[in-house]
């Protein structure tokens, strides 16, 4: 599959420390990610909200964020607060979030993982940590691609079942079931029916 070569993942990095921001940006770029770096949780949400709007207006995929990596200790909105807000948002909750922290506090780590964080990196973040992300995102993308046809089959089944039900209710107007399907078959084969997308 060409996916490994073509896949361009866009990461949103959040850190209030200037040096750390420059470092994480370099680590991500070295690992072939597209990066947007912001210095606060609120700026991150602003960017994500903006990105959401662009998608609604059918703008190209360049704005889509595939992963968020955020520092834990930030003034105002902490990385944990940001994580919660993202998981509470119906449009953003599926974006994986990774937390970074200079402090190795097990209860903090657990809290984040329980809230839905994908992973927890101890600072200073290493290239080996960041290089773990790409295979993870590729796997996710592959799983999503696999899900699509399954979803379509399920959808079709639901539609077929509803149609059958509707037809059965009008049964007294028709002579037999074969006739119903016979007529439908005629209708279906002579007209183009579109059932959603």
């Amino acid at each position, binding site marked *: 599959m060409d996916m490994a070569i073509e896949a361009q993942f866009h990461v949103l990095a959040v850190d209030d*420390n*200037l*040096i*750390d921001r*420059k*470092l994480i940006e*370099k*680590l991500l770029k*070295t690992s072939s990610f597209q990066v947007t770096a912001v210095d606060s949780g609120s700026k991150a949400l602003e960017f994500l909200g903006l990105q959401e709007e662009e998608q609604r207006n059918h703008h190209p995929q360049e704005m889509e964020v595939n992963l968020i990596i955020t520092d834990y*200790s930030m*003034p105002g909105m902490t990385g944990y607060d940001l994580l919660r807000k993202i998981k509470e948002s119906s449009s953003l909750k599926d974006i994986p979030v990774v937390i970074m922290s*200079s402090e190795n506090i097990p209860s903090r780590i657990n809290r984040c993982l329980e809230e839905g964080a994908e992973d927890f990196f101890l*600072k*200073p973040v*290493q*290239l080996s940590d960041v290089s773990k992300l790409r295979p993870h995102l590729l796997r996710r993308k592959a799983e999503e691609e696999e899900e699509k046809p399954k979803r379509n089959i399920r959808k079709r089944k639901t539609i077929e079942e509803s149609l059958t039900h509707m037809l059965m209710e009008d049964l007294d107007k028709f002579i037999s079931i074969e006739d119903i399907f016979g007529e439908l078959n005629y209708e279906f084969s002579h007209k183009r029916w579109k059932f959603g997308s």
Partner: protein
Amino acid sequence: MEVVQMQRRFVEYAASLFREGFLDGQFTQLQQLQDESNPDFVVEVVSLFFEDSEKLLNDLSRALDQQNVDFKRVDSHVHQLKGSSSSIGAQRVKNACIAFRNYCEEQNTDACLSCLQQVKQEYSLAKSKLETLFRLEQQILTAGGSIPIMME
């Protein structure tokens, strides 16, 4: 001086910085991230660190000079400095910050002032040593040589 001699001087100096604990493995990480697309990466990040640290040290002096010291604020500044020094591999500065934070917790102004002195000293040393290292590097480059890659 020949390029080879310059290179040897550079390697020996760098090795001494690691040996004496001024720099740790994180600095090597930074060097390994530097490439053709970003040949000045290390100097850029370290320059940012100098700028940022000087501001933080000034803020710290001011904060500890107040009648009623806001220890939360002091701790927050030290946390920032600890983070950045750790990120560039300035080990002794980082360690001085760790000690500092303990006294912030105790809300001990005198001890904090003493820690601040310690941090300033370590920072000053780190800055001068890194500047020397960069100067040695530049000498090699100017003479047309290449910088020996440091393996951990």
